[in-house]
């Protein structure tokens, strides 16, 4: 894709400060605790793509999605949407950005206002987009039909719908803004398998029809594999591998990706790589490569001290691992995948 990317993320950091009480600070001699949720993330997203963001708990994928939309203010870094610096936008500019970049949440039960009818819920984005009052009824009805719900249910309340239906309403709400980018934060994780399939099909259809770009956040590898054109694997707030879906799944490069795929049921009969040690906490990320304490292929000194950059690899792939960079070769270990 030679056109300018729709979304550019550069060295994004998001840290949450857990303040310690004065007493606690005096007693322990330590300052505030910091959750390094997003710890230096860079990638681009082109229009029409679906980028799957996978990771386990503590990987920071949800925080990343929200920070990109500026639902959290970043600690450092830059996000450019359509060339504009998102974090420098003024109030009006931010509202315009929001119209173009929307989000669908994970929990269908909590993301809709329980005291509002669906009509009122859909009214908000329509109003914000500037749709005149007379036309809102028709648009709301059309949206309902498009996501597979009956327009006559517009005056019902969220609790009268099932989980899958509520998720459709959430999608309709995001769609009502006519966005170009939609961040989908685990949109099907809370649903039954058969309902999941319906929503996935719906998302696919909508993407084609409205020419949407998706950032699809999920821990479910099979769903990600199905929907994404490219996949980014996150670990402890960093992207460890990024690349086109099938090559990544067929031949994962990063040791964490290998372990992750071997653990997931249904990804082919791989040899199981068992990770030792406890899963990490973003409160205390290790120095150097974030994965080195559990990595079965760690080479030693360099992995412990130097954080590997996200380096390019043939085939449009990127890996953040010393095994694939020049540094590792000094120890005598040769990068396994051919150049």
């Amino acid at each position: 894709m030679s056109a300018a990317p729709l979304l550019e993320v550069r060295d994004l950091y998001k840290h949450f400060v857990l303040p310690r009480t004065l007493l606690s600070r005096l007693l322990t001699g330590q300052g505030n605790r910091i959750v390094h949720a997003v710890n230096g993330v860079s990638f681009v997203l082109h229009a029409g793509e679906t980028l799957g963001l996978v990771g386990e708990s503590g990987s920071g994928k949800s925080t990343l999605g929200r920070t990109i939309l500026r639902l959290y203010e970043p600690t450092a870094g830059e996000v450019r949407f359509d060339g504009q610096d998102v974090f420098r936008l003024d109030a009006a500019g931010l509202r315009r950005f929001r119209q173009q970049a929307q989000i669908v949440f994970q929990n269908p039960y909590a993301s809709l206002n329980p005291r509002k009818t669906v009509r009122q819920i859909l009214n908000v984005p329509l109003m914000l987009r500037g749709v005149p009052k007379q036309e809102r009824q028709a648009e709301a009805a059309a949206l309902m039909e498009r996501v597979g719900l009956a327009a006559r249910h517009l005056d019902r309340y969220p609790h009268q719908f099932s989980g899958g239906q509520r998720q459709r309403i959430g999608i309709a709400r995001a769609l009502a803004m006519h966005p170009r980018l939609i961040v989908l934060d685990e949109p099907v994780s809370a649903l039954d398998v058969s309902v999941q399939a319906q929503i996935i099909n719906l998302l696919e259809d909508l993407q084609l029809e409205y020419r949407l770009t998706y950032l699809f956040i999920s821990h479910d590898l099979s769903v990600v594999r199905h929907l994404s054109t490219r996949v980014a694997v996150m670990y402890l707030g960093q992207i460890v591998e990024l690349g086109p879906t099938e090559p990544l799944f067929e031949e994962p490069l990063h040791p964490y990706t290998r372990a992750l795929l071997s653990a997931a049921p249904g990804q082919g009969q791989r040899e199981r790589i068992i990770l030792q040690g406890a899963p990490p906490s973003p409160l205390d990320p290790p120095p150097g490569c974030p994965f080195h304490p559990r990595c079965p292929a760690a080479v030693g000194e360099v992995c412990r001290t130097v954080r590997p950059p996200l380096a390019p690899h043939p085939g449009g792939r990127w890996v953040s691992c010393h095994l694939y960079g020049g540094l590792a070769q000094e120890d005598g270990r040769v990068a396994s995948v051919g150049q």
Partner: protein
Amino acid sequence: MAVWRRLFANPSAAAGLVVILLYAFAALFAPVIAPYGPREMVLANRLKPPAFLEGGSPSHLLGTDHLGYDIFSRILYGARVSLLVGLISVAISLVIGTLLGCIAGYWRGWIDRILSRIADLLMGFPYLLFTIFAMAIIGPGFGNLIIALCFKAWVEFYRLARGEMLTENTKEYVEAARALGRRPVAIIVSEVLPNIYHSLLVLGTLRMGYMIIMEASLSFLGLGIPPSIPAWGSMVSAGRDQMLNAWWVATMPGLAIVGLVLAINLFGEGLREALDPRLRR
């Protein structure tokens, strides 16, 4: 709505509402219903017993006091004072408290810290003492009474509104509204308020009984309402000296107070129960 149905299924709440309406009716139509004017003094008829006691007559249903005022009429007129004071002071406290609570809860930061400190400070004072103190400073009068009552009362609504706002703020539907680009004021008013107003309403209803007792206490002490306007509290106070020979002078207005406050509390409790299970869906 289902809420009303559930409310009326509750007998004590329904009874409470009926009684409240009766009082309101009495207050509204006092000039029409009352057999005597509020300041109609007939000294010859002083200390007449109520109609149901020996020596009483139907012309003075509840007897007369030491100045010859008809107690029944004065109770009717007194209802106006009590209900007005109760309603207005609750309304003002609720509005101020909710406004400040929502602001503090949504934006947090220094404004939250300052407001919450003020609230904590005010909470430290015992209510009656504080109100007396305030009245002593700003002087008597209907308006001043209401100001004094509201001065501390808003804190309760502030706490509740702030707490609810903090809770709702973490919920995803609020995050969704932010993601759509709604302005903060719109989010507070249009998204959050419809989810929290019911608990504020319940608190308001329950506080109203308390306000009325406060008003009665103040007029009992001679503060607040000017003595020329009949108020239940001052009626009780005036009747203190007659307790042994004409007990009805103090007791009747006292019962009026009890009746109204009890009715309000029963209704308020019923309201809370009716609204609660609906929320725990």
